[in-house]
């Protein structure tokens, strides 16, 4: 008897991870079956790494019935980009990368300064990429526990032809019967791991023995202490006058644009130790690590209305 079988037979309990996994697989298969030209957004971050495993569970032994897409701000952590390329190659899946630089060159993105956070502008390049490939559905690894406006978003989240989300006019979503219909030019963002929490993600990474970029684990790094959090020193983030560079043992809880992602102090060297830390942490994931969400109570909602995923 194979191991997976034995586990099911002896326990016959369906754990919360089993329930979440089955729900996510069901969602991905609905997308594949009903959408004409879907894509899966893959950044190399932990949530999208979980998404890839779920896609393997949903579609193997066949290849994925959609390409992987990454909107690269070119302000990403190099370790994460390297991981992104490696993972896509291991899986033998098609990876489409579109860079924010293209939008800057075209003039559709105008930056105020070279070091400005580029997170908000991802929406522009994402919408341009959706138009280029005529994607009618983009699956993303966003979770409802991340942020207040996400908590109100549907699993199948309809966007108009401008890519905009209208929170007050969302389609009702009942049972797990998903309405995937769009008119030409419109699209749907689909969030198969909507119901997962940060803890679930780490437990799943641990259970599935998923490889993730090293920067998620404790490592030494030069950082600057700023009011919103500790900032990693990089080409783009340099100490201002009066600021001191210190070396700390840190890990990243989220991985985004290098100019607005802060690490947390931690000694957690593997997924189990991170689970233990996550269980007792008193600060939310984004609260601790994202400068871009701290500008106002509604910053995420405003970005989503503009087409952010």
């Amino acid at each position, binding site marked *: 008897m194979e191991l997976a079988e034995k586990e099911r037979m002896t326990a016959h309990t369906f754990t919360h991870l089993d329930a979440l996994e089955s729900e996510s697989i069901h969602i991905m298969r609905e997308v594949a079956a009903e959408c004409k030209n879907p894509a899966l957004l893959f950044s190399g971050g932990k949530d999208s790494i979980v998404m890839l495993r779920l896609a393997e569970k949903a579609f193997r032994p066949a290849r994925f019935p959609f390409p992987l897409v990454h909107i690269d701000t070119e302000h990403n952590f190099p370790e994460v980009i390297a991981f992104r390329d490696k993972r896509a190659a291991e899986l033998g899946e098609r990876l489409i990368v579109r860079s924010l630089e293209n939008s800057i060159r075209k003039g559709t993105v105008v930056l105020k300064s070279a070091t400005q956070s580029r997170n908000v502008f991802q929406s522009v390049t994402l919408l341009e990429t959706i138009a280029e490939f005529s994607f009618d559905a983009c699956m993303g690894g966003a979770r409802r526990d991340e942020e207040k406006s996400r908590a109100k978003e549907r699993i199948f989240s*309809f966007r108009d032809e401008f890519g905009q989300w209208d929170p007050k006019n969302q389609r009702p979503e*009942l049972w797990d019967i998903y309405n995937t219909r769009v008119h030409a030019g419109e699209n749907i963002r689909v969030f198969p791991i909507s119901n997962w929490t940060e803890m679930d993600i780490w437990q799943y990474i641990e259970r599935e023995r998923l490889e993730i970029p090293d920067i998620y684990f404790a490592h030494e790094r030069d950082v600057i202490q700023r009011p919103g959090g500790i900032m990693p020193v990089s080409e783009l983030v340099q100490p201002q006058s009066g600021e001191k560079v210190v070396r700390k043992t840190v890990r990243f809880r989220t991985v985004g644009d290098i100019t607005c992602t802060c690490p947390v102090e931690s000694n957690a060297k593997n997924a189990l130790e991170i689970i233990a830390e996550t269980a007792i942490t008193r600060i939310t994931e984004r609260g601790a690590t994202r400068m871009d969400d701290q500008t106002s109570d509604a910053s995420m909602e405003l970005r989503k209305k503009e087409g952010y995923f």
Partner: protein
Amino acid sequence: MSNATQLLRFITAGSVDDGKSTLIGRLLHDSKSIFEDQFSAISKTSAKRGMATVDFSLLTDGLQAEREQGITIDVAYRYFATPRRKFIIGDTPGHEQYTRNMVTAASTANLVIILVDARKGVLVQTRRHTYLASLVGIPHIVLAVNKMDMVDYSEARFTEICAEYLKFAAQLGLTDITCIPLSALVGDMLVERGDNLDWYQGTTLMNLLESIVIDYDVNTTGFRYPVQWVCRPQTEEHHDFRGFMGRIEAGEIAVGDEITVLPSGRTSRVKEIVTYDGKLQRAYAPQSVALTLKDEIDISRGDMFVRNDELPKVAKEFEAMLCWLSETPLDQNRKYLIKHTTRTAKCLFSGIAYRVDVNTLEQHAAAALNMNDIARVAMKVQQPLVFDSYTTDRATGSFIVIDEATNNTVAAGMIA
């Protein structure tokens, strides 16, 4: 929380006045699921609004318009966990559009907490919430008699409210009901028992949430497997592989079992149960798997596998309870789309038997249906559907109606 933790989805029904936000806030707070930065944000906003205490409803009011206007316009989902279970709360606003929002949140819930104010007892809205819970078939109901501190923790008052409620619930055929006296404000009988309700021998709310049996498979229909996706890798290694992928909606299946494919009626046997983690001998609801069959027969998305001794209905006409969700009323002259399991087809409404007044439960004749109306309707579908009655199987008895012109979801239906 270990990997063996289970998942319970529940909703709360009641208005702000019943202390719903306080109850949710306290469940989150006492289970240490409110983070410091969240707590500091809502404390600041509460103070800005001149409130003396922290307003926990701010936690679930996620949208800008809601925070500005102090209203809740949609269903919000909250997550918390204890060492024994993980919970998903569907939090529904308590005012206009209530029916639509509660039906939406209730459709995925295993349990509903219906809140009443001990001073006011069973109100019209309590009956409405209970009716909607029974309509959507939530397996477990908790009557939370809140604000016991305002009635001197009176056992007599609690008993009186429970008796009245149980009598009403019995009329709806509801049996799985637990009544709990509590004070969300003080914290009695939520996570801790407190010192004020010594006469009550039953469970605390949290203990009930942590221990109630989660019925993934309350259905009595047997094996139900709507085909979602046909997997044909067409690679050298898997040249002949033809896996029918889907989620087991009810019952179980084992290698070698004979199955019937509906609506065609062709039969075959299960050759393999394939998952990414290896082949299984047996699989259960609600696992997502892939099945291969011994015979090559024509099968596509929308077909359903069942076992021969447990047949569902196959028909183009049926009656259903319908909840109209759209601001545009039902137009009986128009054709709509129905999505039922993995099949989408054209449909039309051939008649409205009656509309239910959700406050009095009286049945009225109706010529049209407006948003939030609940009615018994007769429907015709262009292709045969494979279904069970909603009361025997939620997954094969439920459907949504889509307006082709707008692509909006305009109704939710439960097959009679």
